[in-house]
């Protein structure tokens, strides 16, 4: 479990003091995929660097499984960093080393025997789907492949936490999707807690279980992705969820119920879902917000519906939508 308590970070520059993070408190439970989303300059990158103490917080604590990272010596911290590894926007692979040697690097510096390190590195390259690129150099790889190598490298020391700093921001949508799938797989198979820093709503929607919205160095809102994205309360959250401005008048929450529909690889080439529901069930819903994309003929993203007519109607809507493979629906 990662506990961030009253974290503050102030940078001193020639132009005066800049408060990048103001009294941030977050709890990230084991096994979560926790998204931290915000606009540029919201303090996301600083926050993630405070989690592994690449940046020392000005005040506040970061506790990993109850141990205070800020109180550790440099040596203890270096050992702890093997438990909290990181991937980056620009992959940051060693350019003069082969992929295999890149994956070996963290094991090499932790003093593992070269033979053992090499064997484990090969296993990891297989896990990320690039066993054939072991002897290639990073420059010979595409962005997505480089990020896979970086993920293999981040897994080399059997971490408990994987920090992803804008890990998909330099990738195209298809590659982003593939990398997110891989991260989700890793989270499920290895039980690694994942913290994802991003400015892309779609990333959070696709894989995160929890989200915190960062705005001007403060946590504007946090909770499960479903709750935060379907009924955003803070101005910052509303800006992200409804980039074109929310119109409250469209739906009155006291009269209508809200249902959040998540498309996670639903067959997009099939029938028009909402229209068919109206026809078959006679339920007319309003679409309050929708952000869906087709990737390889499958639909990803989410939709927010307003359902009139009380609990019963909502139950019918959820039942109907849930019956479609790859679609999740929940009342919010």
């Amino acid at each position: 479990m990662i506990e961030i308590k009253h974290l503050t970070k102030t940078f001193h520059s020639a132009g005066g003091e800049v408060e990048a993070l103001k009294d941030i408190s977050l709890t990230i439970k084991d096994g979560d995929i926790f998204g931290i989303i915000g606009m540029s300059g919201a303090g996301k990158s600083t926050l993630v660097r405070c989690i592994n103490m690449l940046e020392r917080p000005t005040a506040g604590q970061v506790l990993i499984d109850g141990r205070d990272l800020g109180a550790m010596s440099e040596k203890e911290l270096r050992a702890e960093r093997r438990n909290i590894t990181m991937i980056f926007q620009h992959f940051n692979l060693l350019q003069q080393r082969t992929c295999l040697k890149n994956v070996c690097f963290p094991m090499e510096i932790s003093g593992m025997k070269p033979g053992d390190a090499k064997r484990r590195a090969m296993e990891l390259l297989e896990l990320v789907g690039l066993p054939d690129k072991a002897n290639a150099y990073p420059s010979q790889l595409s962005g997505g492949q480089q990020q896979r190598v970086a993920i293999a490298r981040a897994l080399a020391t059997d971490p408990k936490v994987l920090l992803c700093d804008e890990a998909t921001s330099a990738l195209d949508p298809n590659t982003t999707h593939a990398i997110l799938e891989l991260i989700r797989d890793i989270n499920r198979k290895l039980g690694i807690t994942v913290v994802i820093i991003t400015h892309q709503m779609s990333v959070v929607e696709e894989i995160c279980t929890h989200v915190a919205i960062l705005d001007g160095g403060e946590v504007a809102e946090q909770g499960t992705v479903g709750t935060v994205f379907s009924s955003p309360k803070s101005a910052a959250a509303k800006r992200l969820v409804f980039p074109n401005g929310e119109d409250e008048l469209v739906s009155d929450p006291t009269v209508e119920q809200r249902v959040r529909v998540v498309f996670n690889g639903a067959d997009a080439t099939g029938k028009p879902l909402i229209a068919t529901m109206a026809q078959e069930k006679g339920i007319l819903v309003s679409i309050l917000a929708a952000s869906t994309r087709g990737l390889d003929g499958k639909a990803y993203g989410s939709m927010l519906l307003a359902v009139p007519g009380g609990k019963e109607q909502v139950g019918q809507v959820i039942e109907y939508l849930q019956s479609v493979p790859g679609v999740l629906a929940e009342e919010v």
Partner: protein
Amino acid sequence: MFEKLFSPEAVQQALDVLKTEIPFGIWETVYVTVLATVLAAVIGLPLGVLLVAGDENGVRPLPKPLMHVVNVIINLLRSIPFLILMIMAFPLSRVIVGTTVGTVASIVPLVVAAFPFVARLVEGSLREVDGNIIEAAQSMGATPFQIVWKVMLPESVPSLISNFTVAITTVLGYSAMSGIIGGGGLGMIAINYGYYRYKYLVMVVAVVFLILIVQIFQTVGTKLTVKCDKRLK
């Protein structure tokens, strides 16, 4: 100056020198240059690492006054003209090699002149290393020493080779100048014949060989740089 450059006597003499003195001159020039550059690298490389790693934002910040002193010393040595430095280095040459004149003695001022230069070149090479890659290594728990040894130096090998080539050609130029204090080699031949005895053709021949050596160093250096750089393929 050049009207009798190709008179029969001049050509004859040049051919004689070509056979007798030039081969040994080439050998002396090459070995003085290589030895001086290698020694300069032995001092300059760690110094360059110190300049980058010990910097305020480096991987192992050192006390500011210390860094300031190191910087001033390097700048000081770099601002003395080589001709003057050769003379100023006499006491040091006497201590180290027991004499102030001759080929071996000329290596001392060459090293003194070249190591601060090498240190600055190394500093430049190491600063080129992507800070994000260093941060990645830190995020994996690398010690400052490991970052220098396993990240910064290996990542900047192509740049270091390229800069080593710059250093060796510069030292070659200096070594030709050391003919003044009896340092042997092509420079001495050029000065002795061309400057003291007005035998310009011999001077031209010696200079041509200097040019050839620079060409060879540079070609080999460039080839090695490209060959070592895994970013280019």
